[in-house]
C-alpha cells in the first residue's frame, strides 16, 4: 500500500497531532514513513502544511509531487484549496468547514464551498460544532481524522490503537474523548 497525505491548516491549529496518530499507526504496521513538517516563522498564524507519506515499500522523496496526493486533510476550508494541484485524480479532500479569518482578504465563504464541491471526492465537516455538541471540545482534529479513515486506507481499529498509545500518558479521559471523536468522524464517511 502507499498513501500520500497533505495535512494543512493555519499555524497553531494542531495538524501535527493528526500526523502523530497516523504515524504511530503506520509505525506499528511496520510501514515506511516520511513526514515533512513546517517549523519556524510560518508557524505564526500563517498557512502551514505537512507532507505525510506512508507505504509498504521504501519511500524516496520527503515531498509529494504535483498530482500525487491521495488525501488532503485540512483544518480550514480555504487552506484545503491551496494544495489542489497536489491532489490526484481519485484523491479525497477531508476538511473542516469553519473558516479561520485572520486576513483582511479572506474570500467569500460561498465561493470557498463552491470550489470545494467541484472536487470529485470531498467531505466537509463542521468539526468544531460536532466536537462541542458531543462533549469532546478539544478533539475536533481527531473527528477530521476519523472522517479520513477510509481515504487513508488504514483500518479503523489501528487508528484507535494508535490513539491509545499516543494519548495514553494523558490519562483515560483524554483517550476516551479522542476515541469518541474518531467514531464521530467515521460516521461522516457514510
Amino acid at each position, binding site marked *: 500500500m502507499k498513501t500520500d497525505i497533505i495535512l494543512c491548516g*493555519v*499555524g497553531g491549529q494542531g495538524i501535527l497531532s493528526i500526523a502523530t496518530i497516523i*504515524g*504511530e499507526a503506520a*509505525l506499528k504496521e511496520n510501514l*515506511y*514513513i*516520511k*513526514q*515533512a*513538517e*513546517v*517549523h*519556524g*516563522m*510560518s*508557524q*505564526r*498564524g*500563517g*498557512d502551514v502544511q505537512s*507532507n505525510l507519506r506512508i507505504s509498504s*515499500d521504501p*519511500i*524516496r*522523496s*520527503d*515531498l*509529494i*509531487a*504535483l*498530482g*500525487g496526493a491521495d488525501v488532503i486533510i485540512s483544518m480550514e476550508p*480555504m*487552506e484545503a*484549496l*491551496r494544495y*489542489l*494541484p497536489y*491532489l*490526484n*485524480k481519485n*484523491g479525497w479532500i477531508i476538511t473542516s468547514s469553519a473558516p479561520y479569518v*485572520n*486576513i483582511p*482578504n*479572506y*474570500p467569500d465563504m460561498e*465561493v*470557498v464551498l463552491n*470550489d470545494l464541491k467541484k*472536487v470529485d471526492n470531498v467531505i466537509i465537516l463542521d468539526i468544531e460544532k460536532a466536537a462541542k455538541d458531543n462533549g469532546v471540545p478539544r478533539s475536533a482534529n481527531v473527528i477530521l481524522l476519523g472522517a479520513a479513515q477510509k481515504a487513508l486506507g488504514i483500518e479503523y481499529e489501528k487508528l484507535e490503537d494508535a490513539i491509545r498509545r499516543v494519548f495514553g500518558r494523558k490519562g483515560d479521559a483524554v483517550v476516551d474523548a479522542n476515541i469518541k471523536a474518531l467514531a464521530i468522524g467515521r460516521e461522516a464517511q457514510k
Partner: protein
Amino acid sequence: MKKLLLGDEAIAQGAIDAGLSGVYAYPGTPSTEITEYIQESPLAKERGIHSRWSTNEKTAMEAALGMSYMGKRALVCMKHVGLNVCADPFVNSAMTGTNGGIIVLVADDPSMHSSQDEQDSRFYGKFAMIPTFEPSSQQEAYDMVAEAYELSERMKLPVLMRVTTRMAHSRAVVEIKDEPRQQNELNYNSVAANWVLLPANARRRNDEVTAQQPVLEQMAVESKYNQYVDGPDHSLGIVASGIAYNYLMECYPNGCAYPVLKVSQYPLPKKLVCQLAEACDELLIIEEGQPFIEDMVRGVIPFGKNVKGRLSGELPRTGELNPDLVKRALGLPVEVNYEKCEDVAPRPPMLCQGCGHRDVYTALNEVLREYDNPRVFGDIGCYTLGFLPPYKAIHSCVDMGASITMAKGAADAGQWPSVAIIGDSTFTHSGMTGLLDAINENADITVIISDNLTTAMTGGQDSAGTNKFEAICRGLGMTDEHLKVVVPLPKNMPEITQILRDEINYHGTSVIIPRRECMQTLQRHLKQKKAKENKA
C-alpha cells in the same frame, strides 16, 4: 531498535550514541530540534552531556573546540547564517585541528522558509578545507554521525555536516544502535603547539592540512555514501547529492536507466565524476542549494561535454528542489488534475494575538507619526514581522544585532530619529557590542530591547540574558536616566508613548526595555501549571 525521528532528531540520537560529551548551539530554524532532543534525552542526562544553549554560534563553536582540546566529542549546531557568525573559529578549527571529534552541523534553508538568504554551507567546507558530509536520508544522517566522529579523530580535523530544511524537518523510521559508544576520557594527547596559531605554527598547520586534502578526496572516492550505479542508457549521466538524490530516485521507482553518481561526502570525488563523464554523452547535476558541484564539474571534465543543471537552466538557479522540478529536468511528464485555485488568498505569518511586540509597534508608530522621516532599524526575530501590515514599522533587517549598529551609523550620517528595535535573545547574541559602540560615542539613537523572556521565533528556548538586561546596559555604560523599563500592554499606552517621545527627543543614546512574556511560552507555562495542579 526502530524510532520515528526527524532528521534533526536522528542526528542528535546519532551523536549521543557516538559518545558525545557536549552539544553547543544557538537556536536557529531548521537546526533547533537537535539540541532540544539532546536536552530531553534521559541517556544524555545520565551521561552528563552538556546541552545548555550558547549565547551565539561563535561562543558555541569555541566551546566545542575547548571540549575537543580535552579529548572529548563535541557537536556544534546552527542554521546556515549562524556559520557566518562563527566563521572565524570555524575556519581556524581546521588549523588547530581536533583531539576529540568535532562535528559542525549546519542546516541550510533553501527557498528561505525562515531565513534571510539561501547560502550553501558546502562552500564553507571547501573554503576551510574541512571534510563535509551531506546525508540523503534520516537513516544515513544517523549512521554518518558516528562515522564523521571516527573520521574527525582519525584525520584530526573537524567535520562539517550539511543538511537542508527537508532533511532537518522530515520524519522517517530510523534503526538505532542498541549499545551507545562510551564517551571519550579527558586526555592531553593533542600537539599543544597546534592550538597556538602564531604564524609559525599556523604555516606548518596550513601545509599539513593542505597535504591531507588528497587523502580526504580518496576517502570520498571510496566512501559508501558516494555510489556510482551504472545504467543501460549512457546518453545522460546524473550526479545527485544529498536530499536531491531522493527526488531523482522518486522519479524512477524501478531504478534509473541512466548511470547515477550519488554524492554525500566531500571533497568532491573527482575520479568518480570523470568516470561518469567519460561514460556518458551529457551530464545533469541535481543538488539542493547553490550549484556547488556543478561549478566544479564544469572545471573538472573534458572540454566540450554538455553539463546541465542549475547554471544551464534545466533546474532553477535558486530555490529549493522538489520532485516536480527534477521530473521536468529529466523530461518526465508532470500530471496535474486540479488547477491552482485562484480564490485562495495568501496567508502570511503574523505576530500572535496579545503579543507584547504588537503593543510596542502600536506605541512606536503613534509617536513616530510626529516626526519627519523617522527610521526604525529592525533585527532578527518574531518582531521582524512588524514590517508587514498593519504595522509596517521597520525599515531594515539584515543580520543578528544589526539594528543597533545600523541605527548608530545612520545617526552618524545625520539621521534623526534613528531607532533600533531588537529582541532580548538577539541582543545578547550580537547586540551588546554594538550598544557599547553607541554608548562610547553617546550616539543619538533610541534602542528598544523588546524583551519577551525567551528566544521566541524558534519555539521558546531559554534566552541568555533573562533578568540581566538592565545590569548589562549599566555595565556597558548606560545611566538610569535614559534606561527605562515598561510593560507593553494597551492600558500602559500613554506611559509608553511618553517615554518613547522623551527618549527620542533626548540627543544621546537611550535604551527602553518593554518587558512581557511571550504568548506562546505563557500558554505553555499555564498548561504546565494546570497539569501540575491536576496531579496534586
